[in-house]
């Protein structure tokens, strides 16, 4: 596929939509949390205000070059995932730059942001952020175990890495979504999804009481602004990836937003029910049930 | 009565006695004596080997003329060899005794087991 400049405009549009959807999703989730506590909760555009406030701080200071670049790495990671993935099946405009790579690229691009964040937190010389980073990395790599197995199952099933082909295979009724053709793989993927979403039971990384907000402690004003921009885009981009691989992708924006919202809710619901894991508990947990399920999902394919 | 066989058998017995002496005696002088018994047994065998029944010593004098030497003398070669062997035996024993003297100078003990410095 040749690369026309107009494609950039469409991608920016897609990005803007996802950015706003992300912010709104976070506010709706916090509103639901408040409603559960019989509180009216925040205004649904409060995240927007917080973002603008963060950008409008006057003074800031930097711990060093890597601290300065960490938010840039982080946001590049977030946007990169969105950019390299076809969002809306069928529309050429919204398949962004997916010609550059396939699902493997996205799987590994997630770590680009993590590395940047980790380096910035490290440069901040704040011991607690370093502890947060070490916990975060351990958990993320442990969460990768079921993720790799689930993704492998999908790639084997469709005998292709390119997301468009995988989504194409799932069109025509929800019965041939991967959720139904290979349910075990989907369950494993969903468990892995929890690990990556930084929500309890796997939120020890940002545990407010123990280490003040973990890695991003030292980030403030515009640095924090860039980070929270990524906080909006990155979860949604990952959810889109899961939608494309397991839940039949989306042919139009409303379906996409609905599915994203439901998947997002899955991690929120589990979060409110389960208490927080210690890091080695989460590692051991990922090496128990999700691992067995993942192996099963591949064996099912091989035998079936 | 074949004296050759007698000599050989006696020689072997002497060798066994000599070896018994070497292996069991603790006193190094007795070991050296064991060695000389061993040597004597050896020389007995060597001489015994050369013996031919009913023949005389290989000296060509009035009794044995050079002409009929072939049928009347004993095999001279082992006797020549035994001469050399005896002298070698002597040399070895003399050297061993010299060792015994020097060992005694150092440790004032004749027991073989007190000279076990070099081991393992």
């Amino acid at each position: 596929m040749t690369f026309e400049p107009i494609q950039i405009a469409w991608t920016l549009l897609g990005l803007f939509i996802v950015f706003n959807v992300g912010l709104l999703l976070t506010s709706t989730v916090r509103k639901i949390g408040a409603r559960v506590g019989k509180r009216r909760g925040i205004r649904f555009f409060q995240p927007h205000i917080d973002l603008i406030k963060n950008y409008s701080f006057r003074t800031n200071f930097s711990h060093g070059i890597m601290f300065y670049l960490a938010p840039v790495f982080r946001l590049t990671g977030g946007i990169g995932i969105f950019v390299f993935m076809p969002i809306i099946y069928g529309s050429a405009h919204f398949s962004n730059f997916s010609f550059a790579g396939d699902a493997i690229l996205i799987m590994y691009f997630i770590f680009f942001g993590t590395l940047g964040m980790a380096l910035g937190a490290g440069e901040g010389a704040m011991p607690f952020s370093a502890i947060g980073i070490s916990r975060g990395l351990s958990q993320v790599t442990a969460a990768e175990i079921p993720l790799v197995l689930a993704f492998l199952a999908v790639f084997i099933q469709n005998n292709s890495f390119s997301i468009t082909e995988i989504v194409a295979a799932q069109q025509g009724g929800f019965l041939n979504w991967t959720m139904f053709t290979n349910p075990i793989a989907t369950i494993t993927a969903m468990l892995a999804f929890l690990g990556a979403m930084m929500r309890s039971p796997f939120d020890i990384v940002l545990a407010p009481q123990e280490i003040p907000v973990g890695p991003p402690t030292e980030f403030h004003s515009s640095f924090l602004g860039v980070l929270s921009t990524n906080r909006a885009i990155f979860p949604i981009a990952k959810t889109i990836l899961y939608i494309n691989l397991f839940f039949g992708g989306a042919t139009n924006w409303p379906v996409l937003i609905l599915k994203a919202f439901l998947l997002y809710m899955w991690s929120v619901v589990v979060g409110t029910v389960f208490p927080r894991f210690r890091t080695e508990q989460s590692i051991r947990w990922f090496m128990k049930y999700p691992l067995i399920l993942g192996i099963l999902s591949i064996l099912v394919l091989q035998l079936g | 009565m074949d004296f050759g066989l007698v000599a050989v058998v006696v020689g072997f017995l002497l060798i066994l006695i000599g070896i018994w002496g070497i292996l069991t005696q603790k006193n190094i002088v007795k070991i050296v004596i064991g060695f000389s018994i061993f040597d004597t047994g050896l020389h007995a065998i060597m001489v015994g080997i050369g013996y031919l029944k009913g023949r005389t010593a290989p000296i060509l004098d009035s009794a044995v003329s050079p002409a009929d030497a072939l049928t009347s003398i004993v095999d001279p070669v082992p006797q020549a060899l035994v001469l050399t062997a005896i002298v070698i035996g002597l040399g070895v024993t003399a050297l061993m005794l010299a060792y015994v003297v020097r060992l005694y100078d150092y440790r004032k003990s004749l027991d073989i087991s007190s000279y076990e410095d070099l081991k393992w």
Partner: protein
Amino acid sequence: MVRKIFVIILLIGLGWFFYGMADSFHGSDSLNMTASYYAENGAEEVGAANLVTAIVVTYRGLDTLGEVTILFLTAAIAAFFLKSKEEFSKRDVKPSSELLQTAAGMLVPLIFVLGVYVFVNGHLSPGGGFQGGAIIASGLVLLLLSKPLQKVNSRFFALVESFSGLFYVGIGVAGIFLAGGFLDNSILPLGEFGTLLSAGILPVIYILVGLKVGSELSGLLTKFQETQEEN
């Protein structure tokens, strides 16, 4: 005690082996190939009456040279090996008994004469250089026993020993140029069979060997005597 049992077992094994050898030996009735050759033409090739001496000195001359070297070796090793005690001469040992002294006075010259006779006509009658040398040495032992204090000049023995050895090798090397090969005795004419001056250079060699053995053994004995301790 356990060691003795092992040794007995070992000797039984060895004995069984020797028994095997012994009963494989059942005497031969005729001379074998080499012995018969010596018997036939030993006399006129070498010209020595005593065939054993013929073999010892000429046919297997190298062995005898080896012989002499071994003796020389033993003497040399003993020389640099046994340190003589400094206070040798001051030993207060009591003189030997009267009987021994007079008997030694009489017998020693006789023994020396016998020794010389044995190695001079070694090629005629039984005996030869080694036996003669040994007899001389035994005479010396008698001498040493009888007069313990009497100092014997070992320098003399060393000189005799070296001279005779050197001459022996000289004769051997001469054999290459003058006669058939190394240690060949036909440097001198074989002479008339049975007489004293027969068998070419053989008697000379045997005399030299006799002198050498005699001086070496006596040197050795004096060496042992010097290292005697009082106790």
